[in-house]
């Protein structure tokens, strides 16, 4: 599913969250959104999943305007929010039933997918506990399973690795890869550059709501051949010389020992 954002702006009063953002995300690719806190990653994702309405600009999925075809497009998206603190009153099983009802999934598919996914994410046996009793990681797994349940054309994941144990994070990465290999689209935001380097075909780097890089990871690495992705990223986003501050913090800590 081809996704296009054209001149998208989002403002909250005086604050500019997104400034003239234009992106193209192709079918069958894993697309990463990078940026510091407050750079506009979550705003972009929330605009894609209809949580917020851009102030101006258009978003299309396979050429269809999101505004005009909201429900049909939502039917093809699976979303994981940045915090998994939703539907805390429900048990995991009840939450997945709700998702199944929303996407009108056939019972056999739901049963099969949940059996597979609960095994994979080692959550089997906990389905009847309320989400509020889960740890952060368990909540994340529950919401992830919900997003994977309908096997949608587009996965949109806001910092999905947060709180996951290494095994679950590995599993999710494999699922993201195989999803893209099947011609479907994965969009995710992350602060972990290694993850971005490992997974992304293309990525966008945002700074204060503006797009400062859009292209493949390889192309980005080629801009400074001897440098790591971390160094290049920090250069792009305006690395600050924190050496003096870091030194002060360390010295201060030592004097308290």
């Amino acid at each position, binding site marked *: 599913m081809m996704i296009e954002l054209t001149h998208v702006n989002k403002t909250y009063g005086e604050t500019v969250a997104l400034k003239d953002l234009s992106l193209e995300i192709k079918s069958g690719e894993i697309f990463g959104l990078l940026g510091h806190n407050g750079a506009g990653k979550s705003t972009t994702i929330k605009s894609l*999943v209809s949580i917020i*309405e851009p102030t101006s600009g258009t978003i299309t999925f396979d050429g269809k305007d999101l*505004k005009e075809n909201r429900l049909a497009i939502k039917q093809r998206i699976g979303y994981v929010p940045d915090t998994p603190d939703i539907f805390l009153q*429900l048990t995991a099983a009840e939450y997945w039933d709700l998702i199944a009802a*929303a996407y009108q999934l056939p019972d056999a598919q*739901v049963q099969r997918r949940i059996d597979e996914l609960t095994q994979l994410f080692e959550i089997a046996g906990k389905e009847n506990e309320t989400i509020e*009793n889960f740890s952060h990681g368990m909540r994340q797994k529950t919401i992830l399973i919900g997003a994977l349940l309908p096997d949608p054309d587009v996965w949109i994941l806001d910092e999905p690795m947060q709180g996951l144990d290494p095994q679950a994070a590995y599993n999710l990465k494999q699922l993201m890869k195989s999803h893209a290999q099947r011609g479907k689209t994965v969009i995710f935001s992350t602060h972990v550059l290694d993850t971005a380097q490992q997974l992304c075909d293309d990525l966008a780097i945002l700074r204060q709501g503006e797009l400062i890089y859009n292209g493949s990871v390889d192309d980005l690495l080629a801009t400074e051949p001897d440098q790591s992705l971390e160094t290049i990223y920090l250069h792009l986003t305006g690395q600050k010389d924190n050496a003096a501050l870091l030194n002060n913090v360390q010295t201060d800590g030592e004097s308290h020992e």
Partner: protein
Amino acid sequence: MVSRMNKSQLKQLIKINLLYLNPQQTQQYRKKGKTGSAITAAILRQYLMLTILFLVLYSGQLFPVNFLKFPGLFTYYLGLFAIMEITQIITSVYSVFYNSQDFEAYAPLPFSRNAIFFSKLIVVGLSVTPFLIPQVALFILTGIRATYGVVLGAIWGVLLILVVLLLVFCIGALLVFGISKISYLQQHRKLLTSILVFLPVMLMFFSIFIINFTTNSSSATSVDVKPFALLLPFYQLLKAPTQVSQLLFFVAILLVIAVTLWLMIKFLLPTFYATKSVSVSKKKTRHHRYGARNLRRQLWHYNFGLIKDPNLLMQVFANNLMPIMMIMIVLMGGGRLSLAKVSANYWGAFILAGIFFAVFSINQASIVANVISLDRQNFSFINTLPIEMNTYLRHKFNFAAFCQILIMTVILVIASLFLKIPILFALILLASNIIAGILVSEIYFTRDLRRLNSEWTNVNQLFTRGGGNFMVMITLFLTIIAAVAVIGIYFALLMIPLISPVIINLVILLIAIIVGGSVGWHYHNKFWQQLDHVDIKTFIKTQE
């Protein structure tokens, strides 16, 4: 050094627990820009003021009465204040021991368990002080009127009240800790919280109910009431402490307190950490058959889960239901008022009563007025799912309106039975109340969406949206004025011999249909119909 550090730790822990004591009040102070010590100082000041107020108020009220001559009244006041204290103790123990949910947070910190418990006990003790004052006045006033002298009488009174306080504390704490130890409730924490939240309210409510129905109009200062046998020994102990039987009773009370405290320290408190970290995994895993079952059922179940929150129910009860129930109790007049023989000419009055009861009962603290905001972040998430917002909100409205109408219907059915309203009139009352209830629910439901708040941390923030408590009071006041005016006009018209009562009642019915129909039509066209055509964010903006 260690003891000094412990003292400062204890002081800090007390400060923290004071913040937990009344979360709503703390929130109010925060809203006013107060933080840290400023809040705890304000809370302490408030308790001090309350204590002085109670002292002045009850000393003045109790001073003229010589309770030595009225053992029944003595036990009545003792019982009444003891219930107040127990309810306060349960509420405070719940707030600082359970609702604070801080035991796990303290675990990695260098605080001793004793300091943590002691600080909490001090705060519970402080919260109960204002309610203790009337009892202090009661005991000292009765003590100094006894035959053994003013000074000795006062000292004996103070000593006895301390014993009573300890006893009341033991009962309250045993109730809370005991309930929390029931293994079923340990696995159902929400139910446990509900019980701990509702127990004091129910205790207080039914005490007032019983007092209202059992006390007669006779003057309390000239005629004694029947003494409560259970509390009479305290009166006798205060009046004649030197008698052997009274001394034995005193020793027995001390023994009961000592044993209870020992049991709590030995068995209950050490396991308190374990209670906090009860694992829910003890629950048997039943096999769940998954499937895209009926969305309506799923949403009904979900919405029911939203309102099951004990704190929310407590707030709805206190802000919305309690005033209505109190007014109904007063209106029932202790079961003496009967409408069994009401004239058939007055059927229009039951239409009006049903409408005004709905208007009066549904306000911004009602479930229907907050049910969308209760979604919090879920509401945004629902936006990402392929569910029509119209369908989602309709299910939500149906659920909330059903709950609201069910509550009103139960209250009205009970009131109809107590007031002996003829069946036909009762049905008219219920029908007009249900229809008016649906329409008023629509008004508050759409208001909730207009003023949507998904970021609330305390449910009171939802109740005070818009004009806040001031608007609630104004609305309530205007509703009462309007109700009195309309019903007054109705009865005045019925007095005019030239106009047939049938015509007056039909006009009332007609006006109700026109007004109700207009409101229904408005919300159908401007709300439900519009929801189908725009996305929810744009819709909320257009409604502002």
